[in-house]
């Protein structure tokens, strides 16, 4: 059933009239053309579709558009401020933490959410906290280093 839904993405107000059961992921990608949030499984198993809602990570493929009425969403496109990358993005660049990079938007969003909860993560906390995000290139070693760098843990 089509419904009018108002919500905010990266600080910008949007109103869409659409099937209320459509996943937020589809609306971001197909209606708002924010393609940085990606489809990996559609089942909440991989984290490629991660976005922030109130600073916490949600799976946008598992979120009906109707459920974000009045809410504020941040996507990967909204992390940089005035052309300056977020510290996590900078850390991923510095470590070369990407291979095919299809998972990277979701990785960075999940890492930002994790750092929002605890700015001083240990490597063990990173591994546990990031375990819902999948990388088929299995670049986890570099992701741990990058997130650790962003958490102020530094790198040898």
């Amino acid at each position, binding site marked *: 059933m089509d419904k009018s839904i108002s919500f905010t993405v990266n600080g910008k107000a949007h109103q869409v009239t659409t099937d209320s059961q459509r996943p937020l992921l589809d609306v971001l990608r197909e209606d708002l053309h924010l*393609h940085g949030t990606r*489809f990996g499984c559609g089942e909440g198993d991989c984290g490629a579709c991660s976005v922030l809602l109130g600073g916490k990570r949600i799976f946008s493929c598992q979120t009906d558009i109707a459920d974000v009425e009045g809410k504020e969403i941040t*996507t990967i496109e909204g992390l940089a401020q005035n052309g300056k990358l977020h510290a996590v993005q900078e850390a991923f660049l510095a470590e070369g933490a990407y291979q095919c*990079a299809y998972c990277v938007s979701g990785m960075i969003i999940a890492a930002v959410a994790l750092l929002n909860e605890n700015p001083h993560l240990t490597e063990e906390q990173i591994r546990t906290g990031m375990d819902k995000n999948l990388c*088929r*290139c299995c670049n986890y070693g570099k992701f741990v280093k990058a997130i650790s760098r962003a958490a102020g843990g530094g790198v040898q």
Partner: protein
Amino acid sequence: MTRAFATFEVSRRRFIKSLGAGILITVAAPALAQESQPRRQRPQNNRPVDISARIHIAADGTVTVMTGKVECGQGARAEITQAAAEELALSPDKVQLIMGDTQLCPDDGGTFGSQTTPRTLPSIRYGCAAARELLLAAACAKWNIDDPAGLELRDGRIRDPISRREVTYADLVGDDSAKLFQGAIPKGVNVTPVKDWQVMGNPVMRPNARDLVTGAHEFPSDIVRDKMLYGVILRPPSYGARLKSLDLDVAGETKGVTAVRDGDFVGVVAATSFAARKALGALAKTAKWTEPSGISVTELYDHLRTTARGIPDNPYAGENAGAAHALKAEYHVAYIQHAPLEPRAAVAEWAGEKLTVWTGSQNPWAVRNDLSRALNLSNDSVRVIIPDFGGGFGGKHSGEAAIEAARLARSVNKPVKVRWSREEEFTWAYFRPAGVILAEAALGANAALSSWYFVNINSGPAALDTPYSVKNKRVQTVGADPVLKPGSYRGLAATANHFARESFMDELAHAAGKDPLDFRLGNLKDERLIAVLKAATDKFGWSAERAKRPNRGIGLACGTEKGSYVAACAEISVDTNAGTITVQKVTQAFECGKIVNPINLMSQVQGAIVMGLGPALREQIRFEKGVITNGSFADYEPPRFGDLPELDIHLLDRPDLPSAGAGETPIVAIAPAIANALFNATGQRVREMPIRLT
């Protein structure tokens, strides 16, 4: 071998009826074979490439280099950019690289078989070196100098240090660089020797890295065209099922939805992917299919053995009977899926009889040829563009989504995007073949191998031969009836063959009462393999770590494939109550000749080891009567953060040796190292991958 796709007979398509609310239904024959075999690799195209096809310099000085190779995470974009920058004396950020566009780029062959480094990098280097020589010659002509030897190149300029004159590359090429760069690469062009490398050999980052961390990069599934619609395909409920009947009108109950039928090919197109999926769901409920039979995963290895065509006898069986130590063993390797994080995706757009398709494939020209055949077009009418895509691992040699999108786009007369679901990717993409491997060997004096028999049923020939010294050997592949659609994988069968061989070597060492390291070294003459084996075991502290500790084991494995060398030591812990094996630490040494880009190489080696943990410990496609029963990430359980062991990786640089590819071989040693560590921990020999406690 059957072709992946039957011919799509455009002339026989006929328009059937147009319903209200924008419903268009077309029906045509013949059927599309959904589960036929994928094409095997074709040989590299070795046609000489004109210099102008490789490099273009614009009036504003922009240097553009073109290659038919594609980027899917392995780092080719960085390494090819380095090669061009090196020969043109440019900073890598001054080189634009266009990859995998069949209209703009020369065909460098598919991106597989670890060939980009040994084959394409030289092509790029020679092409760019030839362009450099022509630029120098043009500068000499301009300044009336006979010999370019004294001229300097820097930042897109040529400088004569004596007269202090300078000219830019752009000024030398004028308004059309193709005029200067015409002709094939002449003989005698020199590329920059390793000792003079300024850009190659350095840790250069991916040129588009910033777009990867901001989300700005457009993967194939991110491509959007004006008036584009979204398409989904009706899949059979099981392999081999044929469509008996279908009520196409059901899809039409949703506004703006178009259903297309062409034999067994049925698709739905709509303005959003959600609407398309919803309509397809309704349509699928009306479909009646034939019910084919099929075996289940528990019958797999018996099936492969009984359908094997001509297992050879061991010609050394008689001698083995009198040997001090002779062993026989049988190893099993499961079907696995590549499961790249970006599923197959394509956008197709028609302009009259011209077709453009954006898709993720390791084989752009083969996809173009498949499209032209399937749609009855000339090759020149089809352009395939491969944006850097979300993972291949040998799993994207084909262009299924491209053809599906093109067929739907032609039916609705608008651009169409098709992106497979995760379940489709698990079910309808091809698989790394399962295999049964039969191994027999005997040892003579000093535990030297005296005979070797190694037969791989069904999973393939990569790294089939043993790198160990043995005069009497019989190695062979044997075909069998595949259960699932077979295809390539990272390292192809090298993962299977190394698992069996290196496990068997451990069994032989144990039988002879030898340390696994000493036993291998005693049977090796290949200096490069010995070097990685010594490096890995030294760094790991092999001898000291051999001391027994409860529920803990160590194992090693080594091997070579595609011109590179690997050795791994694994330390595992075992929880027999929980039935779990945890890999605590992996020390791996890897050598692929001269290293082109150490940061990229490190990513490849780290990623390969952790990816290899999947098929080593958990990944296995389960099936029942033609239906995949674990086609999701939750059920298939690929490696995650929690699986990440301590990684201690040593890259051996060999400037005296040509550079070999490194995307595949670093994956082959981890599984046998784990199997051998399990034997060390518990005395239990598991001859099956995935390795599980019994």
